[in-house]
């Protein structure tokens, strides 16, 4: 049950990060990466979610930003 929950959360994070950064990955443009990273963080910080979930999502935003900057 716990593994299932972790897998579901990981899937949610990947889908969220992928959707947020899809355009920037194609463009490989630093400005877009910055803008999308800002949006990702602002949406997360305004989620009103418990802080554990917020921490996980902020980490996902940073990972997606790194991928975007690297163009991968």
């Amino acid at each position, binding site marked *: 049950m716990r593994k299932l929950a972790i897998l579901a959360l990981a899937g949610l994070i990947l889908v969220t990060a992928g959707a947020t950064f899809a355009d920037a990955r194609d463009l490989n443009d630093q400005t877009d990466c*910055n803008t999308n*990273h*800002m*949006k990702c*963080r*602002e*949406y997360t*910080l*305004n989620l*009103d979610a*418990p*802080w*554990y*979930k*917020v*921490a996980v999502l*902020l*980490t996902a935003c*940073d990972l997606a930003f790194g991928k975007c900057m690297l163009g991968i």
Partner: protein
Amino acid sequence: MATGVIAGTVPGGGRSLLKNRGPGQPVPRRKAVEVPVAADGRDEAVLGRPLALAADADRLYVADALDCAIKVFTKDGRFLRSFGRKGAGPGELSFPSGVAVSGDEVVVADKLNLRIQTYGREGAARGGFKVPFAPDRVFSLGGGRILVTGNPTGRRPEETILHIYDAAGQPAWRGLEARASKDRVFDAFRNMVLVCPGDEGGFFVIYKSGGREILEYAPSGVLRKAIGVDERYAYPTVSIPAGGGAMKLDGFCWAASRDRGLFYLAAAESVDGKDLGPGRWVSVLDGQGRLRAVVELPCAVHRFLVSDGRMFAIDDEGALRIFEVGP
């Protein structure tokens, strides 16, 4: 492994604190009385993602980030109208996250358009100005001055959390330097603040996961003093995994407001002993930080505004709730 620790002695951080076990005088406790809000079936009356509230003498303004609109209610909770729509043109909004009433204008933090917009009380767009960051909350300091908060990105040097703009939309002051370390996630929590406008243009700042204090600022932006908060004010602490280790987070305050010289602070509440979420205990503190009363709400609240002893709150479902909480 996440652990939960409770600091303080008066309800505010979990069911285990229902008894006052600490030193000091007993604190009066009471239950908030809910004011029934009339249901309104119209789509535009429903709050999608309410992020901020503001009030004038007889109306309540709610920033709805999902509907990209400001929704106006009477102070009895009856829906009056909505203004703003999604877009980037004049009067249009993208993720409005803050709202304030300044003179005869309603001021809105138009977050993803990176600007502050102003409207008449009836919703007519009047203009606004751009800001060099994503504005989060907005507060009126009187005389047309606006205090805007921003969430630091952690990727720019010398970022500040607070920004004051004059009546012409020109930057007048910025301060409260963001706390920065190698862990941007940890920093995001450490830089979360709540602001309560004070009297005569000053304001108060409370770190959501900070020390037991309320920072008082003069209208000029000079830090006047740190008001120590009563040791009987309770809040939980948890450890959350981060950066290969664990970060300790204090749930000092989830939401706050100030009304007639009194602070209303709702501590975060422990969720399953390992996380922090909104609470349903509101501590009433005087101007010296002394705990005057503890008010129990029937539900947890994410954000609230206290005006003339009445609390306008957003609950877990994103619905508007009204409570009598005044002394």
